[in-house]
C-alpha cells in the first residue's frame, strides 16, 4: 500500500518544479465502543486516506467514537496545526469540527460522543458526512477528504431537547378569517311549491263561501241608495291595505302614520254612513 504511493510521490517530485510535500495520515483506526466493553466490543475499522470507508458507522447513544491516527507530512510523522474531524449535515449544510489532540510525532486521537454534538446534527434525517482535515502553515498540500458516513442512534427514552426556535424575519403563515355560519334559505323550488299551495287556498276559500251561499246581490241596491258612503268606505279599506303595503316596502313610520290617519278618518265617517244604510236594509227585513 505504501510503496505505490511513495513511487507516485517521487514521480510528482521529479515532474513538478518545487518539491511540495503533502499531508496525509497512517495507521488510522476508528472504534466505536462503550465504556465497559473494552477493546473487544464495538466496531473497529481501518481508515485509508485515499478512499472513504464503505462501511456505514453507527454511533449509539452512550458510546464513544474514537479515531486514532498518525498524521504525516510527506513520509514523516508530524503534527499539523489543523487536525479536525468535521461532521457535515448534508441537507442544511451545517457542520461541526472536533480537533485531534496530537503529539509532536503526529500520533493522536479524537473522541466524540453524542453529548458533544449540537441538536441540529443529532436530529439529522440523513447520515452525517465525516471528513478528516489535516493542514498546516507552509507550502505542503493540505488534506481534506470524506472519510466515512456516520449515523446516530438516538436514545429513544431520552430524546434530545429541542432548543427554542429562534425568531427570524420571514413571511408569516397566511390567515384567512373563517366567517360564522351564514343563514341560507332552503331550495327555491320548495318555497315556490308552498307559496303556490298557500295562494291556492284563496280560490278554495271563495269556493267554500259560494257553497255556503255567499253573494253580493245587494251591491246595486246599496250603491243606489248611498253611493258615496259605500264607495268611500270600500276605497278606504283598500287604501288602508295599500298604506300597509307601502309601509312594508318603502315608507317609514312617520310617512305612514299621517296617511293612515287620513284614510282611517275617511273609513270611520263613510263607514258609519254605510252602516246606516245596511241598518235600513236590515230593518226592511232584507238581511
Amino acid at each position: 500500500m505504501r510503496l505505490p504511493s511513495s513511487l507516485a510521490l517521487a514521480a510528482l517530485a521529479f515532474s513538478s518544479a518545487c518539491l511540495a510535500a503533502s499531508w496525509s495520515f497512517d495507521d488510522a483506526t476508528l472504534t466505536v465502543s462503550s465504556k465497559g466493553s473494552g477493546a473487544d466490543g464495538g466496531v473497529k475499522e481501518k481508515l485509508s486516506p485515499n478512499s472513504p470507508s464503505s462501511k456505514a458507522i453507527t454511533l449509539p447513544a452512550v458510546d464513544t467514537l474514537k479515531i486514532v491516527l498518525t498524521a504525516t507530512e510527506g513520509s514523516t510523522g508530524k503534527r499539523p496545526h489543523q487536525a479536525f474531524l468535521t461532521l457535515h449535515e448534508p441537507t442544511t449544510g451545517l457542520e461541526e469540527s472536533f480537533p485531534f489532540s496530537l503529539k509532536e510525532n503526529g500520533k493522536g486521537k479524537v473522541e466524540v460522543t453524542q453529548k458533544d454534538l449540537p441538536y441540529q446534527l443529532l436530529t439529522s434525517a440523513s447520515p452525517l458526512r465525516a471528513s478528516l482535515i489535516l493542514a498546516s502553515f507552509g507550502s505542503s498540500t493540505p488534506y481534506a477528504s470524506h472519510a466515512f458516513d456516520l449515523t446516530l442512534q438516538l436514545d429513544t427514552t431520552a430524546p434530545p431537547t429541542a432548543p427554542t426556535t429562534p425568531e427570524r424575519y420571514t413571511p408569516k403563515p397566511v390567515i384567512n378569517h373563517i366567517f360564522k355560519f351564514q343563514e341560507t334559505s332552503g331550495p327555491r323550488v320548495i318555497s315556490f311549491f308552498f307559496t303556490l299551495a298557500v295562494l291556492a287556498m284563496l280560490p278554495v276559500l271563495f269556493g267554500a263561501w259560494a257553497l255556503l251561499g255567499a253573494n253580493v246581490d245587494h251591491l246595486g241596491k246599496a250603491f243606489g241608495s248611498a253611493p258615496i258612503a259605500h264607495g268611500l268606505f270600500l276605497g278606504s279599506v283598500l287604501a288602508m291595505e295599500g298604506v300597509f303595503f307601502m309601509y312594508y316596502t318603502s315608507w317609514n313610520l312617520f310617512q305612514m302614520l299621517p296617511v293612515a290617519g287620513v284614510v282611517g278618518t275617511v273609513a270611520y265617517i263613510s263607514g258609519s254612513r254605510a252602516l246606516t244604510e245596511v241598518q235600513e236594509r236590515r230593518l226592511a227585513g232584507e238581511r
Partner: protein
Amino acid sequence: MKSFEYCTAEMRWLFASLLLALLSVVHARSFNSSRLLVVTEEITEKDKYSTFWGDLESRGFSLSFASPKSPDLSLFKHGALAYDHLLLLPSKSKGLGPNLTPNMLVNYINANGNILLALSADQPTPPAISSLLLELDIFLPPDRNALVVDHFNFDKASAAEKHDVLLLTSPKPLRNGVRNYFEVDGSIAVPRAVGQVLGNASPLLAPILRAPSTAYSYNPKDEAEAVEELFATGSQLSLISAFQARNSARFTVLGSAEMLENKWFDAKVKSQSGVEGATANRAFAEKLSAWTFQELGVLKVGRVEHYLNEDLPKGTANSSEVGFLDLNPKIYRIKNDVHFSIEISEYVFTHLVPFTLPPTDELQLEFSMLSPFHRIPLVPTSRTANSTVFTATLTLPDQHGIFNFIVNYKRPFMTNIYEKRTVTVRHFAHDEWPRSFAISAAWPWIGGIGVVVAGWVAFVAVWLWSAPAEDGLRKRN
C-alpha cells in the same frame, strides 16, 4: 403719534443680506445628511485607505477625521447627531476614549446613527469593544489576539506560509427570500481577520461574509503549534456581521480593517489552485459601506390607502377617479369588501426606484384587533416612476370592534416597515339587513299574508252587500 423708526432703509438692506447669508450657511449644513466621522488613532494611518476615502467622497459623504483621544470629539451636538455615520478603525489603546464609550455608541445607534466598526487581528480588540458587541449578541474570541486562517482558501501571492489572507468568493444570499446586496464579480481578499460568532436568538443579526468550511480561528501567540480548543470553525465564523436595530440604524462589524486598504483594492492574488486574478475588494467595500451608511437596502413607504370596494357608482369600475371614493374612511361595517394599497420605493445610492420583492418573499397585510384575523399577501399591481403599488382586497371579519391594517415587513438587510392604520368596524344597522321579500324561504308566509288581506277585503264586501242565502240551504240547516 410719534413712531420711532428703528430700521432705516440702509439698515433694512444690511439686515436682509445678512439674513440671506446666514440662511445659506444654515442651508448648506442642515440638509447635508451624509456627515461621516472616521475615528482613527494615528492620523497617518488614514493615508493607507485613501482610495476608500475618495470613493466615499465621490458618493457625496463629507468626511471628518478625529482621534479617539481628542477632547472635543462628540457624537452629539445640542441633542442631535453631530455626524450621521461613524467609521471606527482599529485602535491600539485599551478603549475608544471617554467620548466613545459603549454606552454612547448605543445611544448613537438609538438616535439613528450608523456605525462601521473595523477590527484587525494585528491589534488586540479593546475590552470595551468586546463588551459592546456582546450586548448585540456578537461573540469575539475570548483571547484578545485571534486570527482566522484557512489552509485551503488563502492567497498564495502574499500569504503562502502564514495562510492568514483568505480568498473568498462573493457571498451568496443569506437564505431563500433575502436579497443579496453584497454580490461582486471576483474574489475578495480578507487579510488578518478577527472572526465573530453570532448569537442564535437575535433576528436583528445577519452574517454578511462567512468563513469557508475549512477556516478556523486561533491565537497566534499561544496556539502556534497546534490548535486544541476551538472558538469556532467554518461557516459558524462570520467575518463581516451586520446588525440592524429596530429603528433601522445599522452597525456592521468588519473583521478585517486591512481589506479596505489601497493595496488590497486591486491586489493581484493567486488562489490555492493557481488561478490568478485581481481582487474585487473595491467593489465589495463600496457595497458594504453603501449598505451600512443607508445607501442600499433602504425602503420608503409612500401613500397608504384603503377604501370600500363595493357599490361603486357606475362607470368607475377601475377607480382611477379617486374623487368618487371616500378614501381612508374611519369606519367600516362588518363583512365589507375593502381594497388596501401601499406604495413602496427602494432607495439605491442616489434616487428612489420601484421596490421589487425578492423571489419567494411575500409582503403581507394583517387585519388585526389584538391578533390577526386576516394575514394576506399584498401583490404588486402598478408602478409609478419611483415606486411600486402593492394592493390586496379583503372581506372584513364578522366581528365588530377597533381594527388595524398593519403592514409589518422586516427582513435582514432591509429597513423595517411598520405601517398601521386604525379603523372602526361596526355591525349591521337596523335597515341594512336583507328584506323579507328577498329571502326565498319567507315567500310562503308573505303569500299567506296576501291571502289573508284578500280574504278580509272579500269578507267586508260580502258582509255589506249580501242577501240572505237561498231557502234550500236554510231549510237543510
